[in-house]
């Protein structure tokens, strides 16, 4: 798959892009499931699942195209794969082999940062640094809802606003910071908070990758056009626990969990594209095969 830059599809995704969205979502879901299996059998130490957040991740990453450097948090596995991080490279740090399994420069997907919100300042500084050197200064930084409470996030928003840095903040609001609900973490929304700092923003549901794609394409156009930051807050569900160490049943109701699982963006989007006739069972079988192969490779490498 060749990534297109956002300028090529400033508004709605075309059919190729739609299939691409779905394919990336299905692949990372396969990876995520395999990671859980490997963790359960003790082959890797820990896994931070992205189940429920695939539409947000794939939609945003495809919308901005291959050029911007990405400063992830630690859960952006879909973005990683989409950028060309190999599945076994992605798994390496969760297996205790390294702090970062891939070459960040090659894929312009930088290492996971486990100290919450620290990467937000790096992202803005990097963008400023790139601009000063006359190079691509569009940067994407991912952050969770909980991490936005850290001073660094506010400082980064203020810095980006004051410097008018070309930074897209993507806040994946999955409703939880481990066990603390997002409503108890903030009084407003991240989108409102960003505007308070002078950053344009949008808030949207993250179940539909096409809507995410469009919103992020618009955000990217704003950033390139105005040379100013933008924040998208994407509301997603967290299907699994915070990590494999977290038994979320301890603090979430069965109802809430059932609702979140029922709103699975991957199955929903697969059904939608099938219904629309954009993918058929042959296409789906093809992706299945790809996923199977990936899982076998992971098992060979890690089990």
């Amino acid at each position, binding site marked *: 798959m060749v990534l297109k830059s956002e300028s090529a599809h400033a508004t709605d995704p075309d059919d190729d892009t739609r299939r691409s969205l779905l394919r990336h979502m299905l692949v990372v879901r396969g990876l995520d499931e395999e990671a859980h299996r490997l963790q359960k059998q003790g082959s890797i*130490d*820990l896994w931070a699942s992205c189940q429920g957040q695939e539409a947000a991740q794939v939609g945003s990453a495809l919308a901005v195209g291959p050029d911007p450097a990405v400063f992830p948090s630690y859960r952006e596995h879909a973005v990683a794969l989409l950028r060309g991080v190999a599945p076994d490279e992605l798994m390496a*740090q*969760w*297996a*205790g*082999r*390294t*702090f970062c399994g891939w070459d960040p420069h090659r894929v312009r997907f930088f290492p996971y940062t*486990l*100290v*919450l919100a620290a990467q937000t300042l790096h992202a803005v500084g990097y963008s400023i640094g790139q601009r000063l050197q006359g190079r691509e200064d569009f940067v994407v930084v991912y952050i969770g809802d*909980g*991490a936005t*409470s*850290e*001073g*660094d996030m506010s400082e980064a928003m203020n810095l980006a606003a004051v410097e008018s840095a070309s930074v897209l903040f993507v806040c994946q609001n999955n409703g939880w*910071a*481990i*066990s*603390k609900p997002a409503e*108890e*973490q903030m009084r407003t929304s991240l989108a409102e908070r960003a505007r308070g700092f002078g950053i344009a923003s949008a808030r949207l549901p993250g179940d539909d990758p096409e809507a995410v794609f469009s919103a992020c394409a618009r955000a990217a156009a704003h950033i390139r056009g105005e040379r100013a930051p933008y924040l998208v807050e994407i509301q997603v569900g967290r299907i699994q626990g915070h990590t494999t*160490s*977290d038994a979320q049943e*301890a*603090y979430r109701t069965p109802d809430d969990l059932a609702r979140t699982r029922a709103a699975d963006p991957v199955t929903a989007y697969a059904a939608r594209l099938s219904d629309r006739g954009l993918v058929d069972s042959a296409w789906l079988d093809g992706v299945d095969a790809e996923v199977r192969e990936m899982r076998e490779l992971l098992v060979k490498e890690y089990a």
Partner: protein
Amino acid sequence: MSTVRSTGLAESINATLADLLDSDPRLLLLGEDIGRLGGVFRVTRDLQRRFGADRVRDSLLAESTIIGQAVGMAISGLVPVCEIQFDGFSYPAVNQLVTQAARIGGRWNGRVSPSLVVRIPTGGGFRGVEHHNESNEALFARYPGISVACPSTGEDADQILRHAVTLGSPVVMYEPIRLYWRRSAPARDPEPARSPSAARIVRRGTDLTVATFGAITHEVLEAAHALAPDVDVEVVDLRWVAPIDMNTVLESVARTGRLLVVHEASKDLGIGAEIAASVAEHGFDALRGPVRRLAPDRRTYPPANFEKDYLIGVQEIKDEVLVMTK
């Protein structure tokens, strides 16, 4: 070698906190995920259910906020017992702890005496990911106004916590993660500590003093038991690393003539440096040979696959003792 069954550290601290919440209405707990979830290590399990969300507070996800608001609460007359989720995430709280909590009593010329406790799960040895294996007791130990404790048993944690909440100045207590759920420990001499803030001689011996603290006390004791009766090692569990009970260490070295300090934090500027320096200053004449420190070299805690090479094990302790006493 004798091993005894013990209550896990987590369970013991949980019981102490429950008792303190019961007996002192001014006390409250504050930390990320300590309420609903009972903490990522379940040290505060069930406490929110028992004492309510006002007193067992799921804090915002911001360490500076935790300590900063605790300072304000302490000024208002409460006794906040905070939790930082992992030692590696204590840095955003450094400013509030060092420039505010530690100095507020002095700045107020003694007109407030804020008791404020910060519990920090610490140390490695459980294949943790990056930043989850730090041993930072030396960070706060440097600062006047902050006391730092490093218990190695539930009983000590209990005594330390009860003392800490009455101290009128901040106490940071480091809790070894790998002891939270461990249920057996090498046997210790039953000798009581002279005071809640004193060190404890957990094994009497004649040939060499090992000063240590925290989780690795267990490995030191295991090594000491294994070396007996050929080498008779005295083990001092410091329990507090700021201020350090140097009297107990110096008296021990006066008896044995040899000092080894063992800790899990990296060697440079660690607690071992302070102890070795103090003994080289004040116990020099008693020394029969060089003091030694056994601790990881100055390098970052590695990815899990390499942590065995990083951590100090029983074998290295035995080897070191043998080199020093041969």
